[in-house]
């Protein structure tokens, strides 16, 4: 019931499911809400703004791919829940608070630059497009003026590494292109395959990596890989190139020069 109410609320406040089909139950995905302080019959709305010093926190009981468009306005990091967080929140009072998030998958959105960003929340393994939640955020990436007095701590604590909860790779090669021997061996080399099988997020028993042509059709593909390809295919570099997705954030990069470089790159992202 809660998820149905949530869906209805989202329709009324810049959040729009991609389609109206809703056959399977929508997973519980919770966005920050603006408290209903004026009239009790006005439903709360999802927060539509994100400031530079705030966390926009999305809780979910299923793993999500968080896709943004255009890319670059928002930084997305994920963490396994429950988790305790201290900071300013987009649905908060404007002051630093400590909060507990109890669901299994927590996503922290922070502003990188200013503009209007669309965000799709795609449950991993999604079967229905209606399970995908689309939300629009007005992002203010302008850093706030420092308060009077001493400046910021010159040695802030480094951001702790986030656990990798989803990891996929797509090697994009033009079919029929003849690359040099070293690049031809990517990604078929046993060391790469073994790593990808061990580390990437499987779906339906198939490891989360592919070799695609730039014009690859994914009509029959598994839902997550299909969604990832749809998200990145318009942003590809000239083939060959490499796409790595970690925790719902996809990065397109030049194709590695050889097997060793491929493994270094993959391990940098996937651990």
């Amino acid at each position, binding site marked *: 019931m809660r998820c149905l109410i949530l869906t209805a609320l989202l329709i009324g406040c810049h959040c729009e499911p991609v389609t109206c089909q809703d056959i399977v139950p929508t997973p519980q995905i919770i966005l920050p809400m603006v408290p209903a302080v004026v009239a009790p019959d006005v439903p709360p709305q999802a927060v539509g703004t994100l400031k530079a010093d705030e966390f926009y926190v999305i809780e979910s009981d299923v793993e999500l791919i968080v896709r943004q468009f255009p890319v670059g306005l928002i930084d997305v990091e994920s963490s396994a829940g429950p988790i305790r967080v201290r900071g300013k929140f987009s649905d908060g009072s404007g002051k630093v608070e400590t909060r507990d998030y109890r669901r299994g998958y927590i996503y922290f959105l922070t502003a990188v630059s200013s503009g209007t960003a669309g965000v799709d929340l795609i449950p991993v393994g999604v079967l229905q497009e209606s399970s995908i939640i689309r939300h629009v955020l007005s992002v203010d990436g302008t850093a706030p003026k420092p308060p009077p007095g001493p400046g910021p701590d010159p040695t802030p604590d480094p951001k702790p590494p986030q656990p990798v909860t989803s990891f996929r790779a797509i090697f994009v090669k033009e*079919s*029929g292109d003849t*690359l040099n021997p070293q690049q031809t061996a990517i990604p078929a080399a*046993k060391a790469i395959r073994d790593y990808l099988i061990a580390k990437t997020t499987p779906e339906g028993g198939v490891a989360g990596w*592919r070799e695609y*042509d730039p014009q690859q*059709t994914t009509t029959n593909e598994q839902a997550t890989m299909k969604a990832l390809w749809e998200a990145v295919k318009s942003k590809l570099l000239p083939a060959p190139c490499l796409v790595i997705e970690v925790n719902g954030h996809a990065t397109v990069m030049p194709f590695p020069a050889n097997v060793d470089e491929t493994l270094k790159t993959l391990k940098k992202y996937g651990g």
Partner: protein
Amino acid sequence: MASFYKSVIPVIETDEPETNLSHPSGATFGLVPRDYSTDPQTMFAPPSGLKIIEESDWDAYYDEQEAMQSSLEHLYLCGPNGEPAFKNLDQNGDGYCWSYSTGHSIMLDRLRRNLPPVRLNPHATAAIIKKGRDEGGWCGQSAKFGRENGYAVEGTGPGQWPLQSRNLKYDTPELRAEMAKYRIEEEWVDLTQQLYDQNLTKAQVATCGLTNIPGPGDYNHWSHSVARVRWVRIERGSWGQLILNSWPNWGRYGLGVLRGNKAICDGALAIRLTSG
């Protein structure tokens, strides 16, 4: 006496007489050489975009594949103790080799791309083309059908084609819808257009074999069509075509090597891209 590639994969030699290896008892073939009057050169995309790997560079590509275990041969034999990723298909007494060679090639392309594995049934393609008759053909016929209609999945469920059946009652709208999921997507290259001389054809076939592009190959001397897997170095300076056959219990998990003149195919296609 037969020789072996890597000690276990049998080699069909140029000058050896017909043996049980190339013509085992009970084996069926089915290749009918391409008729250029009905299947003209222009029916396929030309190979002009294929950047040839010169023969002087074959060793470098082959050595890298061996060092990295990155060839289609390695991908096919990636199971425990060198077992295959899938059991080779069986044309089972019908003259449908020309459809199995293409079906195997699609499966190898999916293997290379790590697409979810699927077991295709080339009997459906051949039976539909030949209207249920047990007739020979050439690989271009099945590949053209695969590009336009796709390939059926083996099975008895809705939209599937039972193993080795020629019964056209299974050609239903559900079957066609399922077949369309496994199509040859991108234009493919006819490697043996008559425009090109035999040396260039050999170079094209070798290039595909060294870059993990599978494809069906027709061999008139054998009256047989098989999937081309890899261009292999049998010994220093001696190269051959690693093929995947559609006969059960043949070679090494269906693999064998054609050497010398027997490695020169008379009709070949490169399956560059299949449906994801």
